[in-house]
């Protein structure tokens, strides 16, 4: 009820334009504007492109790191596994606003520790105001996001790895496989469903959760020059308006619905294309 009604309502709103009373029914005209008019299309595709980049970087950086850390943590002989687990998961518990603020301070060219620390290491000349440069802002924000959220895939992988039955590993060891090959040939295939799950969670999170961090670090204009603009910040500016720009409920609903369809398509592709082919091994 609380999930469906807003979705239906925003789909309905996206088919109207401002006018007398409740608005005028215009069919798909708003969607045509979104991808047709240069002003909207430019922002839409830019935000979409950044979201895709964000997703790719999370898949290529965050999830392998999480998997590697989980594999290390699940080694039975590792001492202090619980401590490491807590440390890796801790940033996830912090509020996004706090994380954004802390990293902004750390990386600040004026008050941050980074310039001083890099000078001390003798590489001070490599310091750049990363959050302020078009070329580096998105990757910097992504790395901050990874720092914060790596704990979640880590926990999922870790739980899956612990579920791999001891006898299977024992059998592999007797067959003469070492730890490295056991991981690749035995454990990894067994946790494939989790890998898929993490992939889809990353996909959804990248469209929904990325807004918080980017808004708190770069503000509603997702600067510099919209280089960190994602669907979330684009939606925010369109729907609520920003300074001199008045908000537009109908275009906002259109962006929101487009976002909904993008997520829907992605998740369906996964469900029908990937999930069905995955086998669950009974143990």
């Amino acid at each position: 009820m609380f999930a469906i009604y807003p979705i239906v309502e925003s789909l309905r709103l996206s088919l109207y334009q401002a006018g007398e009373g409740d608005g005028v029914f215009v069919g798909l005209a708003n969607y045509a504007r979104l991808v047709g008019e240069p002003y909207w299309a430019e922002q839409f595709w830019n935000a979409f492109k950044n979201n895709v980049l964000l997703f790719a970087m999370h898949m290529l950086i965050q999830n392998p790191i999480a998997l590697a850390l989980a594999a290390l943590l699940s080694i039975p002989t590792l001492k202090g596994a619980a401590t490491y687990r807590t440390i890796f998961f801790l940033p996830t518990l912090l509020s996004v606003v706090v994380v954004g603020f802390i990293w902004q301070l750390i990386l600040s060219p004026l008050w941050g520790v980074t310039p001083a620390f890099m000078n001390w290491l003798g590489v001070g000349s490599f310091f750049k105001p990363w959050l302020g440069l078009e070329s580096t802002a998105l990757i910097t924000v992504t790395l901050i996001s990874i720092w914060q959220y790596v704990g979640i895939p880590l926990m999922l992988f870790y739980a899956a790895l612990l579920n791999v039955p001891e006898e299977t590993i024992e059998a592999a060891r007797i067959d003469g496989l070492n730890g490295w090959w056991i991981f690749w040939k035995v454990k990894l295939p067994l946790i494939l469903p989790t890998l898929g799950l993490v992939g889809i969670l990353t996909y959804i999170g990248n469209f929904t959760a990325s807004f918080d961090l980017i808004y708190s670090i770069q503000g509603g204009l997702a600067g510099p020059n919209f280089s960190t603009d994602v669907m979330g910040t684009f939606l925010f500016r369109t729907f609520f308006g920003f300074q001199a720009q008045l908000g537009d409920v109908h275009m906002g609903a259109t962006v929101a619905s487009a976002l909904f369809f993008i997520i829907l398509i992605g998740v369906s592709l996964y469900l029908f294309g990937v999930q069905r082919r995955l086998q669950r091994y009974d143990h």
Partner: protein
Amino acid sequence: MKVSATKAAVAAVALCLSGTAAAQKVVISIESWRAEDQAIWDDLILPVFEEQNPDIDVQFTPTTATEYNAALNARLAGGTAGDVITCRPFDNALAMYNDGSLEDIKSLEGLSNFSDVAKAAWSTDKGDATFCVPMASVIHGFMYNKDAFAELGLEVPKTEGDFYAVLDKIKDDGGYVPMAMGTKDAWEAATMGYTNIGPAYWGGEEGRLGLISGKAKFTDDGFVEGFRQMARWTPYLGNGFQAQGYTDSQNLFTLGRAAIYPTGSWEITGFQENADFELGAFAPPSKDADSNCYISDHTDIGIGMNAATENKEEVMKFLAWTTSAEFAELLTNAAPGFFSLSQHDINVENALAQEFVAMRGQCEATIRVAHQILSRGEPALGNQLWTITANVINGSLSPEDAAKEAQANLDGWYKP
């Protein structure tokens, strides 16, 4: 049970009646976004009015600035908004007037105390209705660290040439960041940069009204020159200015690490509290020794009447008072940095505010270039100027291309 309930009701009614009999005051309330000025209104401004009008009780009931527009619109729609409404300039208040939420007060006699530029912010495009009394403006300019200037033996710059000579000297000395400004929040670049120094190049009102009437274009030399000046600022900004936000700039200046801060008079109160050095102010530099200097004397706050109020007579009385010299002087001195828009002779007490107000006598006045009419497109020109000015300073957009983008925005929808 029943009896006692009736008794209570009778008692309550009686109490109410006696209450009105004793007070016989009409209460009117003011909607405002200046929550930080609550004490100023309660203790300094309103008591003066209430003393002269003992039958009116005025209450100042502000909302947080960021929530003001949304909250006020909701209250107007629900019929619970205050009697007096503080107006944002131009389109925002105009939209309220068009909705029928603001009363036309053009008949108010005291309005003759205000210049046409001041009234334009709260009048219809044709000027056939005025819906708010112009209250206060903020003046743009530069603040500087007087101690730093004395230490380096610098004079306050008057012309563009002087300005860059001063910046060069500060840069060569190396002890101070020449100018405290960043591009991260983008609005500083446009508000404190482009619309601050630009009017000297496009001739203030002449250029601005030219854009509205279609006689001038952003691609004209004056407007492009404004962007060129922005590109010239880049070397004088602090290290890593691309990631420097508004509060970073404020701190950089008040901590005494920067010598010059492009800004506006609204910073006066805060800066005088935080900085432990002498502050001075100078006007945006003129093109050369023979040209005029121009200031952006931006119409920022007006005050009008909720069309649905039940106390029209009292509200009119109050609005008439806000056009008086007495109100102008009270306001200007209670909130230094927000200057009365009236043409009364006012005695400004705050020394730094005096320096700003003195600019009115030396320079021609204009307002922020994109605020009137021109920001109705998509994207709003005012917002677009933020981004493109920041890009010019960051070096990712040439001044000529920036001008073209701004003009393309207008060409896209505006028919003069």
